[in-house]
């Protein structure tokens, strides 16, 4: 490849960055325009450092970051574009809305920084707020906005300047569960409408699975696994991936305390009606040799398709009628003498099943 003729309208980053004496981030990212990549990881994995590096708030130690073919940071050639000259939109964790400015002034901030006259900037910001249904709170200060409103103002503030790259740092984590589900759909729409590359930083596997085409699992400053949500769910390569990304994620239709899946029906603890998103933690699923006593309502016979030992824990993939990943202790596995191909019963307490309303069009 010849220098200078890189014709890639996306984000290319291959870098090493350091924060403080102890933390080192080593990362290779390639996000084509129009696609969303999620960086999934626990606290302290380097997610926010990644945001800072891409936004220009922290220079890389070595490597290179290019956006739309323009090199933003490359210490080897002494190149560094400061944040205000990069065209990167960021939705920060906790949003960081300016408390002394109204919602509309917050949205207009980026436009005014780019020398747009005050009146025009405010008009465009007001248009944005109207489009996302926040006209009535446009004159409020962040302290008077709800969590959901703040999140949408923050998103509008990042998008109104039409950035070349969109960075979302835990955009939904500060919200309560019901607001989160609703705003996740909004966010999916906005992402759909954003033409550039998008990077979603999250610790929530559901969010990553629903919003991103590709997931990088980030642990202790390194990417430990890359793939689709299914890749990670079914073949987690680390303990963390297994813990978090291994959640069973299903879609179905709920009515009368039950949810109908493709070929199966589960009892659920909520009275939600309609399309729902169902999550079941692997550790919430128990495996038995015989039909469990007291017969919990969610129990059925199946066959073990796969057994993976991960230290003291064992992950078991069950076969039809419902492919699930269960996790039990090594001791229990040995006590039951479980092997691949064995006929077993699985059981899930209804209270252990997570149900979120209105999942239509989220899982494609």
């Amino acid at each position, binding site marked *: 490849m010849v220098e200078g003729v890189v014709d890639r309208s996306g984000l290319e980053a291959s870098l090493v960055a350091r924060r403080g004496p102890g933390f080192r981030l080593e990362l290779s990212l390639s996000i084509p325009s129009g696609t969303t990549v999620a960086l999934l990881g626990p606290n302290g994995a380097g997610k926010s450092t990644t945001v800072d590096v891409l*936004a220009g*708030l922290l220079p890389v130690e070595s490597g290179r970051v290019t956006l739309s073919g323009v090199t933003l940071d490359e210490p080897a050639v002494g190149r560094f574009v400061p944040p205000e000259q990069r065209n990167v939109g960021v939705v920060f964790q906790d949003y*960081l809305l300016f408390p002394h400015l109204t919602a509309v002034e917050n949205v207009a901030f980026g436009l005014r*920084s780019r020398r747009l006259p005050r009146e025009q900037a405010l008009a465009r910001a007001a248009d944005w707020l109207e489009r996302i249904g926040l006209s009535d709170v446009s004159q409020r200060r962040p302290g008077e906005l709800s969590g959901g409103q703040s999140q949408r103002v923050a998103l509008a503030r990042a998008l109104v300047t039409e950035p070349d790259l969109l960075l979302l740092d835990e955009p939904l984590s500060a919200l309560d569960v019901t607001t989160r589900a609703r705003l996740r759909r909004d966010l999916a729409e906005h992402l759909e409408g954003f033409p550039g590359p998008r990077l979603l930083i999250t610790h929530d596997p559901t969010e990553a699975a629903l919003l991103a085409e590709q997931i990088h699992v980030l642990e202790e400053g390194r990417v430990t696994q890359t793939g689709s949500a299914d890749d990670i769910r079914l073949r987690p390569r680390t303990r963390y991936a297994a813990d978090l990304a291994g959640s069973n994620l299903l879609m179905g239709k709920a009515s009368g305390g039950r949810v109908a899946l493709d070929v199966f029906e589960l009892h659920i603890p909520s009275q939600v009606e309609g399309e729902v998103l169902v999550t079941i933690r692997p550790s919430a699923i128990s495996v038995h040799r015989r039909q469990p006593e007291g017969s919990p309502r969610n129990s059925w016979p199946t066959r073990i398709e796969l057994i993976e030992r991960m230290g003291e824990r064992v992950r078991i993939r069950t076969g039809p009628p419902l492919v699930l990943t269960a996790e039990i202790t090594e001791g229990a596995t040995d006590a039951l003498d479980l092997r691949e191909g064995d006929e077993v019963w699985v059981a899930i307490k209804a209270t252990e099943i997570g149900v979120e309303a209105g999942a239509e069009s989220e899982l494609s």
Partner: protein
Amino acid sequence: MTHSKPERRRPGARPPIVLIILGCLGLALFLIPLAGLLARTPWSELPRLLTGDLVTDALRLSLTTSLLATLIAAVIGVPLAWLIARVEFPGRSLVRGVVTLPLVLPPVVGGAALLFALGRRGLIGEPLAGLTGLVLPFSTSGVVLANTFVAMPFLVITVEAALRNLDHRFEAAAATLGAGRWTVLRRVTLPMIGPSLVAGLTLTWARALGEFGATITFAGNLQGRTQTLPLAVFVALESDRDTAVALSLVMVAVSLAVLVILRERWWKAL
């Protein structure tokens, strides 16, 4: 729907009795001297005393010099606070200590130090006078300088604390929105520390208005040129208590008025 509030005392409806007693003692400490001042005020003589040259000259001089000192403190004190709060440099804690020096130093000593440094025979004052003919002692500029020296720490300390408490990620957010460093400072940093800035400026101004020791030591005492209200009060106390009391009343009235107006206009809004 009817309002069915449980019969419970609103939290904070009645503050603890101990706090009330101690708080009132604190207030009394301020009010008692004020009462003494008012009790000694020659009310019938007041109009004549207040319109005298001595009072009007001192009032005019005090207002101009204290406001100029506050302005200078804002122009050089805020950047100093920013540097101490935001820039890592060797000897930073020493600089922090130096800034608070005028608070610890008796003002008279501060005035003497200014004299040794910037006086006509002073370390810097002598070459300065030789080069520019500028002599600071016994001039109104000298009063402003003494006021600034003594009062600026209030601004620097207040603003520095506010800057250190400010979440710098707000400034980072502004940068990602295309704001250069100057725009960030003007549109994010300063507005966000606004209340502290106003509080610091107010304290600075109040301290400058009441400045006595450094002023009389460095700038001397001459009506219309360097005799501010506190100096006029002090000299008047020697011979003419009525004038001294009248002057003190003017000081109290001016400072109370300004502080109350500021509180209404700024601290409430922010």
